[in-house]
């Protein structure tokens, strides 16, 4: 197992502090030191901003907080946040020049909730500009390198958060997903990544890309890290009208912290294996790792059923109509008028300012998607593109509904068709878009999904994915706990 930095899970950090051998200040200092190290010495370019001062202040407050020590589920646990999520007093760059100088005056609900749970924010992580990309190569501030092998991409768009966890800076991090942007980098970096049900986690404070697809997701070293973090941030938020008032179960209930490694029975669980997720383009070694994982789960008592989701192949085209359409509207506010970059135009007029600011401020991929999205919403094209895409989107969602009402509890698939690729390997936009072929379906359907390490191919991590019915994260986590335990160290070998 090459290039695997030392990592400390949430459970390990908590127990080190329960034993009182370490304080939140000790833990935070170590995380901040490691954050500096990965960027200044290892040159991974993980963080766009570090929050040393506020982190140390928060840690010192926790040191004195005896009650939090007993009750806060993430007491003193350091975490990182993708730099498209607002934290008061810190920059929100979205990996873009257009937000130059913008500092958020308010904090996202998900961050607020992690802090309420005792966690300490150490910094803001790199991403593809406005979360548009699958490699972090679209960041205006340079790509992040994969901590497992710095010559390959960490995936994206939440590549910085995945790398922060993979490099052992933090055990948990927030990312965001519009079409696989947490799960794909999790798979590439050998960590766990969760995309919750649409409406499970508040988007308040997450800079919108495709609002009907966006969800804040979590990274963890282990499934229980991610489950614990999700449990803390999930639930109805009065500030986000699309959050659902559905109770948040204790995802760790059947799997107490620290029980990793012990065999869990999967008797009664029906796992669907959708054939469309195992196409001939799938890296055969990843396919093998998936079959191994399925075998393990069979031996734990699960029933594996071959199923078909016929509209899967339409997901990428649909995604690349719906997401850019919404993005073209969501990114209209970056106009140079109120905050961020303003470039005066040649003619000193308003229109010239808009054009100069937006041309200079947005990178090529963002510009491409704004143009695409503007086009598909235009008079005369709306019906042919956006309306039709929304209709197909509901067919894709129907595929999931049908499967989950037929007795299948979870689906198991590869997370990505390949492992992490070298920088500059995918210059054609469409080739890059195919990285999300197995992940964007869950965003379109709104169902929860998790990626976890299932082994390595040529030294690079491969991810396996579970998807479950809306708000059935509990079952998804139970399956993931079991597989993680069954694979043990093999997951990283």
């Amino acid at each position, binding site marked *: 197992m090459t290039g695997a930095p030392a990592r400390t899970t949430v459970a390990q950090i908590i127990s080190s502090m329960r034993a009182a051998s370490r304080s939140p200040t000790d833990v935070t200092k170590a995380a901040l030191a490691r954050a500096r190290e990965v960027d200044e010495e290892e040159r991974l370019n993980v963080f766009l901003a570090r929050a040393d001062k506020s982190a140390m202040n928060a840690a010192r407050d926790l040191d004195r907080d005896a009650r939090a020590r007993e009750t806060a589920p993430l007491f003193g646990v350091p975490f990182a946040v993708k730099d*498209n*999520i*607002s934290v008061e007093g810190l920059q*929100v760059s*979205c990996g873009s020049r257009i*937000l130059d100088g*913008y500092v*958020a*005056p*308010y904090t*996202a609900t998900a961050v607020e909730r992690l802090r309420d749970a005792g966690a300490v924010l150490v910094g803001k992580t790199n991403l593809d500009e406005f979360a548009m990309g699958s490699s972090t190569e679209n960041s205006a501030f340079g790509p992040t390198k994969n901590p497992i092998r710095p010559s390959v991409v960490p995936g994206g768009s939440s590549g910085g958060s995945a790398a922060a966890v993979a490099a052992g800076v933090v055990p948990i991090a927030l990312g965001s997903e519009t079409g696989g942007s947490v799960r794909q980098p999790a798979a590439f970096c050998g960590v766990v990544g969760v995309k919750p049900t649409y409406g499970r986690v508040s*988007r*308040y*404070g*997450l*800079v*919108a890309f*495709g*609002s*009907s697809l966006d969800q804040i997701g979590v990274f963890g070293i282990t499934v229980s890290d991610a489950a614990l973090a999700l449990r803390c941030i999930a639930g109805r938020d*009065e*500030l*986000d*009208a*699309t959050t659902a008032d559905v109770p948040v179960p204790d995802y760790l209930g059947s799997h107490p912290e620290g029980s990793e490694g012990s065999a869990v029975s999967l008797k009664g669980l029906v796992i669907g294996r959708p054939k469309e997720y195992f196409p001939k383009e799938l890296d055969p070694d990843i396919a093998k790792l998936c079959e191994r994982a399925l075998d393990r789960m069979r031996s734990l008592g699960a029933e594996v059923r071959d199923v078909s989701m016929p509209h899967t192949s339409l997901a990428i085209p649909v995604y690349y109509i719906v997401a850019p*359409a*919404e993005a*073209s*509207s969501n*990114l*209209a*506010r*970056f*106009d140079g*008028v*109120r*905050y961020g970059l303003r470039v005066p135009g040649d003619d000193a007029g*308003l229109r010239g300012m*808009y054009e100069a600011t937006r041309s200079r401020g947005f990178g090529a991929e963002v510009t491409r998607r704004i143009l695409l999205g*503007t086009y598909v*919403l*235009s*008079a005369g094209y*709306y019906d042919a593109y*956006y309306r039709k895409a929304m209709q197909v989107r509901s067919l894709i969602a129907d595929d999931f509904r049908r499967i989950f009402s037929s007795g299948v509890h979870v689906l198991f698939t590869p997370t990505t068709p390949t492992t992490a690729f070298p920088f500059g390997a995918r210059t054609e936009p469409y080739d890059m878009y195919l990285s999300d072929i197995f992940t964007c379906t869950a965003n379109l359907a709104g169902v929860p999904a998790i990626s976890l390490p299932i082994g390595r191919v040529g030294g690079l991590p491969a991810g396996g994915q579970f998807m479950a019915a809306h708000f059935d994260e509990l079952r998804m986590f139970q399956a993931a706990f079991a597989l993680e335990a069954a694979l043990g160290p093999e997951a990283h070998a």
Partner: protein
Amino acid sequence: MTHADAPRTTHAHTGRTTHEYEMVVGLEVHVQLKTRTKAFCSCSANFGDPPNTNVCPTCLGLPGALPVLNERAVDLAIRAALALGCDVHETSIFARKNYFYPDLPKGYQISQYDKPLATGGHLEIGATEKGGAISVGITRVHIEEDAGKSLHDRFRGVTAIDLNRAGVPLIEIVSEPDMRSTEQAGAYLRTLKQILEYMDVSDVSMEEGSLRVDANVSARTRGDSKLGQKTEVKNLNSFSGVERALEVEFARQCALLDAGDTIDPQTMLWDAGTGEVRAARTKEASHDYRYFPEPDLPPLILDRARIDRERKDLPELPSARRARVRTEYQLADYDVTVLTSSPALADYFESVARQHGDAKAAANWVMGEVLAALKAAGQDIAHVAVRPRDLAELLNLVRDGTVSHTAAKQILAVMMRSGDPPAQIAQREGLLKVSDDDALRRWLDEVLAEHPTEAERFAAGEKKLQGVLIGAVMKKSRGSADPKRLGQLLAERFGT
């Protein structure tokens, strides 16, 4: 292209006869809803606060902020829609209307598009001088948010933006093209304004911008059933401006048609200063708003019970109130129209009438003294210092002879300023009716001494001078003398 690009102005009163053409008008009215907070955030919706003080991440359009619907705005919108006879839909959808403008912080306006809150209403307009009563169809009523305000004249050389108004809830009321004259358009607006006032959903003030009007106007040969090409007239800032602008735009269209030209589907801007319309630049007019469903807000689902509750609690409509006031107080049509012109005035009148008992007297005082005093002071009935209870009390004092009619007017003037109760003022100012003969005789003596000629002529039998003499005493007594007793004393004195 040059055709559309060339600014074209047309003066009013070109003198052209346009009788062969018929004007067709439809109106789009934006009304600010009277909510405490904005449509999608909890900022104050108050008008007139210092610029950019009622703002938050949501209405500033900061990255990551999200809208949450103000249910109070929905209630008011439902009420307005029901008052206009619309069908309020159990499901309506918010949509984004996309366009760039500096006072539109998100780059889109949250509105409703193909699934509006309500459709299919109508508004009855009474007869005008130029035509009989008509029913104007209401195409739709939908909820949307206001934009901020661009201040072009606040600072030299730059435009400033005030976002206090950004996100204030509006309804847009779109009429069918059912109006055929400027008078009907004016009557429609006045009727609509009155209904909205009665529903208490808006301040409906064009000056403060809580009611704004865009007009769609076209011309067609009288008798044609097909509509002509319409233009949209914007920048209308008063009801009279609407009527003038429609007249000018109609004349412009008629002149073009007479010359064999066609009408371009364009946006015209009214300039109240010059009385002209000019074509907006084509770019301003040719927006493709790229509407699509607002993903940040779930569909607005209204259960039947909520709509029914609003319907049940609907305030009395102006027409119903007019009918009731007419029968309940036995008043003439003119009085009814004046007294019910606004719900505040009607409330005031009814309160005075009920407490005093004599509706006719109450009507006369409210329509006469009270309205005149308000007009003189530049106030409106909603803020009048005289409580209905006190006005009723004043009328009681007149009725039972405690104060004279003349004194009552003076008392009312003091009441308007101070808000004190009338009996107290009468007492304090010595305006109680004086029937004490000694006092009356003293005043009478003084007056006779001051007017020897009149006294002589009266004594000589010129009876018509009684009024002059008694008037002089009334003046001297500042209205407190009892004129009836004075007459008797005068008669006694001269033995008539």
